[in-house]
């Protein structure tokens, strides 16, 4: 059995190992660092230092420059702490030695300047996000995101895997909401708990952000969650059909009401966490901005070949607030690429907010038909047939669940 000291060393290697993303590099790293630690104290210390040195070098190689600075700070935290303590002691002792007030003012200022704080925040906003530590069931990420793993769903049977997520679909839970007021504390708590339990039981989303801005991991990112159903998303040359197998599902506890603006009443805490979660997932899985979308844009009904089988967000997902380009102003891919239609119910359920996306898509469809010398109707039928073929082949290639 290893001693507690050794366990700490291994824990460090484990933690640093999480920073390396490439699987083979990670394997090289953990194996090199993870040699059996000798029992003699000085040799053990030497090996630990070597492990740490190797760890930080490898991690620094993997990280962009600004993160390497943070890593350097983390590595030298003990020295910096000692330096800070020494400086504080000096400051306290100086008056006793009769040093003038002017000299005191010239003493070292250990607090970061507002400018420094600002530049740090700006860098953090665009930097890579990594796992800092796991305390109990909670993961802390470098951008401040905390993800709870207490409610992770354990599959009842074989789980279909996701090799590597390529996108994110945002949902609203469309659950009953209690007023966000202190008098409704118990009601809020109960509804939140029941919702999470339901989502967990049915493995509906990978993450849920509750009304207080807490992020919960329900389904691990490498397993399929049942969030998008029949769905289509087109981004540039990429065409994705039935997104459960390749997109992550993130739900915000909210309800869409098409008659209101914005249609989903999100709390500031939810928006903040949603943004941090988006940042973490994009950083972790290298997800393109254009593959971050909302359920109202992707859901389709293949039986009737209509868009908008589900309309959560009702055309009001806060793309701008989440730091994303707004796809509501672009042609709807399911219509332009696969000839889906739409009906009045869809326009009504989205409060008319998707009219522009539909108009652009219909125009693109007509143009394509003209270029091919076909009537729009015939071209649409051909595209729909293409969709059915693609769906059949996707179903055949899908791993067993």
């Amino acid at each position, binding site marked *: 059995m*290893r001693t507690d000291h050794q366990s700490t060393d291994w824990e460090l290697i484990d933690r640093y*190992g999480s920073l390396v993303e490439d699987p083979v590099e990670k394997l090289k790293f953990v194996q090199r660092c993870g040699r059996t630690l000798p029992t003699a104290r000085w040799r053990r210390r030497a090996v630990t230092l070597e492990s740490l040195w190797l760890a930080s070098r490898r991690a620094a190689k993997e990280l962009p420059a600004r993160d390497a600075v943070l890593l350097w700070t983390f590595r030298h935290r003990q020295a910096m702490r000692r330096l800070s303590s020494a400086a504080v002691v000096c400051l306290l002792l100086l008056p006793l030695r009769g040093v003038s007030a002017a000299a005191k003012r010239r003493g070292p200022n250990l607090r970061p300047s507002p400018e420094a704080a600002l530049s740090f925040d700006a860098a953090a906003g665009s930097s890579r996000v990594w796992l800092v530590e*796991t305390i109990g069931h909670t993961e802390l990420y470098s951008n401040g995101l905390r993800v709870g793993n207490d409610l*992770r769903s354990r*599959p009842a049977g074989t789980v279909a*895997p996701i090799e590597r997520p390529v996108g994110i679909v945002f949902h609203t839970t469309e659950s009953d909401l209690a007023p966000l007021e202190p008098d409704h504390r118990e009601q809020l708590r109960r509804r939140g708990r029941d919702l999470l339990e339901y989502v967990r039981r049915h493995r509906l989303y990978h993450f849920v952000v509750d009304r207080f801005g807490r992020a919960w991991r329900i389904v*691990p990112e*490498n*397993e399929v969650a049942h969030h998008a159903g029949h769905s289509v998303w087109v981004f540039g040359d990429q065409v994705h059909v039935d997104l459960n197998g390749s997109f992550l599902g993130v739900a915000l506890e909210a309800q869409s009401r098409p008659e209101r603006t914005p249609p989903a009443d999100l709390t500031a805490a939810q928006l903040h966490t949603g943004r941090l979660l988006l940042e973490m997932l994009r950083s972790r899985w290298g997800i393109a901005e254009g593959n971050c979308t909302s359920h109202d844009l992707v859901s389709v009904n293949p039986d009737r070949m209509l868009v908008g089988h589900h309309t959560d967000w009702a055309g009001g997902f806060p793309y701008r607030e989440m730091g994303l380009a707004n796809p509501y102003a672009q042609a709807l891919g399911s219509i332009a690429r696969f000839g889906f239609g739409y009906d009045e119910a869809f326009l009504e359920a989205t409060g008319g907010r998707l009219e522009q996306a539909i108009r652009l898509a219909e125009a693109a469809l007509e143009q394509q038909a003209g270029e091919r010398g076909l009537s729009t109707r015939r071209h649409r039928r051909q595209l729909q047939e293409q969709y059915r073929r693609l769906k059949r082949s996707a179903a055949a290639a899908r791993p067993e669940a």
Partner: protein
Amino acid sequence: MSPAKGLDIGTSRIVVAEPNGSHYHYKAQLNAFVSLPGSRLTESGLHKEGIPFKVMGSELVVYGDKADRLARVFCGELRRPMQKGMLNPAESQSLEVIEQIVVSLCGQPKDGERICFSVPTPHPGAEGNLTYHQAALSGLLEHLGFRPKCVGEGLAVVLAELDASNYTGVGISFGGGMCNGCLAYLGAPVVSFSTTKAGDYVDRCVARVTGEPVNTVRQFKEESFNLNGRGANVLEQALSIYYGDAIDAAVNSLERALSETRNVPKLDKPVPVLAGGGTAKVPGFLPRLEAALGRARLPISISTVRLAADPLNTTAKGALRAAVLE
């Protein structure tokens, strides 16, 4: 990346994994053969059909996937170069057949190409057999021009897919001849274990108690059996029983290995369990394994139990990762 290959030499299949950009490319052949009486007519027939064979003495030996088809056509016996995870002592041509299959899968090695092949964990009392098995395969690959090294099959499963947990966790390969597992900590094997109750054991036992031919049992198992359901007929009931037995044996083996090992690291967080291999592909396998692990008294706690993304190729993928480590 310098050239490297991962080779899973299993009792029922041989799989090779090669890097293909940021992905992996796999090729597989059945690890089996049939021998036909040698004649010019048969030889030219095989040539014409593009069936790979090798003349061995007075016999024509057809190997790989085509051997199965020929065995069915001629109602001949499909022979195995390996048995219970090791070279089959009853087959004198086993090494030559494996060589032919490896050549057909791997082709000519590039200069100094590394290859890492999987070896089973010997069950108690059979350690000597592993020495021979490992040395013989290593010599064969060296003779072909590769730079061989070997990796335990259980560890290969860990290396293949447990990168998210820094290669800490339990990997179990439920193969045809054997079930091999390993608890690894940061990519280093801590405890390895194995049982011979695997796919072939299930087929054999079910065939014996139901009176059905082994091939019928295997075909039914691969095509329509679901371990979730209640056995509607005798065949399903027997399969369910023997599958349960094989799973319990694997979990007991893990439990025993952990209890007998003194240097189990102090793990402060639960570890994942990953199941690979063709036997684990049966629907309903995972809940049974999960239940068996839940019943076992293990000194480690389990976070998740999951099936490998590509169970048939997991070991080869792990072997490839081990090969590129140097």
